[in-house]
């Protein structure tokens, strides 16, 4: 579904040349939930913006369902970390969710249906008439997720979406993403700096190196499909996987050479 080949991004400006992303190659299969995790400042956001067509890569290509991405493609929806700045404060929740749909060739009744359905599936059916700033942070991020869902994307890109909400809300939102992913079968690429979150959510975790970024490891998360905050997080296998990813990130920070292993660590 999503095919990233040899992606490279170099920022040039004020006489400084920063290589944010050096060489990234990975794929995301249709219906897969993949988490990208890496040390802070490793160019995760840059990478995701290149994938989403918001930034032009210096080299390399991104393909969405076989088509080259050279601008935000209609089959992708973005959920940003800064929900407060991503929702439009002059529009009510319902209008915020509906706005992107107006760009699509949809009838009014179909739009209404999509908006109502998306808001209901994030548990905000009653909030359509409220303004975003009347809601809590967690609820605002739910609205942003509903907006992405209503857009009916093939691929959902999420850029550290829960980094700015409190821990309890965060756990709820993680379960929400898992549930929506399973119910709707969308492909999700989820960027985070939180190792536990990556392991808890992902079917696969891609560990990135420090900047300039390369793929350090791809790890299959062999936890059961049915996950919940209580049992999954205390499962021995969860601990093993998170310890393994943690070690990889620490090694990446030290700048140790990439150990390319595409298999899960031995049980």
């Amino acid at each position, binding site marked *: 579904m999503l095919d990233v080949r040899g992606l490279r991004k170099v920022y040039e400006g004020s006489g400084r040349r920063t290589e944010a992303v050096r060489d990234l190659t990975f794929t995301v299969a249709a219906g897969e939930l993949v988490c990208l995790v890496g040390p802070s400042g490793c160019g995760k956001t840059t990478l995701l913006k290149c994938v989403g067509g918001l930034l032009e890569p210096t080299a390399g290509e991104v393909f969405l369902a076989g088509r080259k991405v050279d601008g935000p493609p*209609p089959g992708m929806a973005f959920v940003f970390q800064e929900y407060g700045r991503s929702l*439009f404060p002059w529009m009510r929740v319902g209008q915020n969710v509906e706005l992107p749909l107006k*760009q699509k060739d949809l009838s009014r009744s179909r739009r209404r249906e999509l908006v109502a359905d998306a808001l209901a599936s994030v548990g905000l059916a009653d909030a359509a008439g409220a303004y975003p700033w009347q809601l809590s942070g967690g609820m605002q991020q739910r609205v942003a997720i509903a907006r992405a869902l209503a857009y009916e994307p093939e691929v959902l890109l999420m850029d550290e979406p829960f980094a700015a909400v409190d821990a309890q809300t965060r756990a709820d939102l993680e379960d929400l993403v898992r549930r929506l992913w399973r119910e709707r079968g969308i492909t999700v690429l989820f960027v985070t700096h939180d190792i536990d979150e990556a392991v808890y959510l992902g079917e696969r975790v891609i560990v990135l190196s420090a900047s300039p970024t390369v793929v350090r490891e791809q790890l299959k998360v062999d936890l059961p499909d049915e996950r919940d905050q209580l049992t999954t997080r205390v499962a021995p296998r969860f601990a093993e996987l998170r310890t393994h990813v943690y070690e990889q990130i620490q090694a990446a920070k030290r700048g140790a050479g990439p150990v390319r292993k595409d298999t899960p660590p031995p049980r």
Partner: protein
Amino acid sequence: MRGLLLRLVFVLALPALLVAVWWVSSAGSEDVYWPPLGTILESFPDVWTGERWRGDVLPSVLRLTTGWVLAAVAGVALGTLIGSYRRVRAVCEPVLEFLRAVPPPVLVPVIMLFAGIGDTMKVVVIASGCVWPVLLNTVEGVRAVDAVMTETARSYGITGAARLKDVVLPAAGPQIFAGLRQALSIGIILMVISEMFAASNGLGFTIVQFQRSFAIPDMWTGILLLGLLGFVLSVLFRWAERRALGWYHGLRTAARRSR
């Protein structure tokens, strides 16, 4: 109910005090140029008859609104254009800074040369003075649209007219309204000045006529009326702003509460 009464007292206390001070200090004044407030108020209904409202006040208000609306449309349109493109901005900015620095009243004689002394001249004078705060505030507002909002719009394919209508203009709304408000007070000043130069009717013209014919209390009534006009317009403007920018005031209140 009690809260409303209390607010009314707060609003009216200072104006009432100032009027009282004026009344007492001017009472029994023999000075021709400084007539008692009582005399001024007595002559008010005699001066501002129905005919004067039709013949002087209405034309003034029409010139003001026409000039202001023209300035608003031109200012927002040009400001959006200049604010949206870095290149256009680089070309226009020095010129704008210069033009803005020219005091609009000096344009009156110049504009008279090509626009004559009729209503067109006055409307052009008002518009050419009002346009600057609107234009410059719009440029700033459009420039300052949040980067995350811009990217959100882009990632959802919201471009062109929809982007302008649903994202850029609302985001710049608070700034644009600040500009419109400044423009309104400049507009009143220019309305009076342009009518003082060459006119056969209007508030500015009438006040100057009274002064030249030593009808001093009548002149004072004109000044009072101008003040009242400015006050009424600002109340109307604030009402419109509350309606259009309700979200902005709500957002700010919410932000303050969460801090």
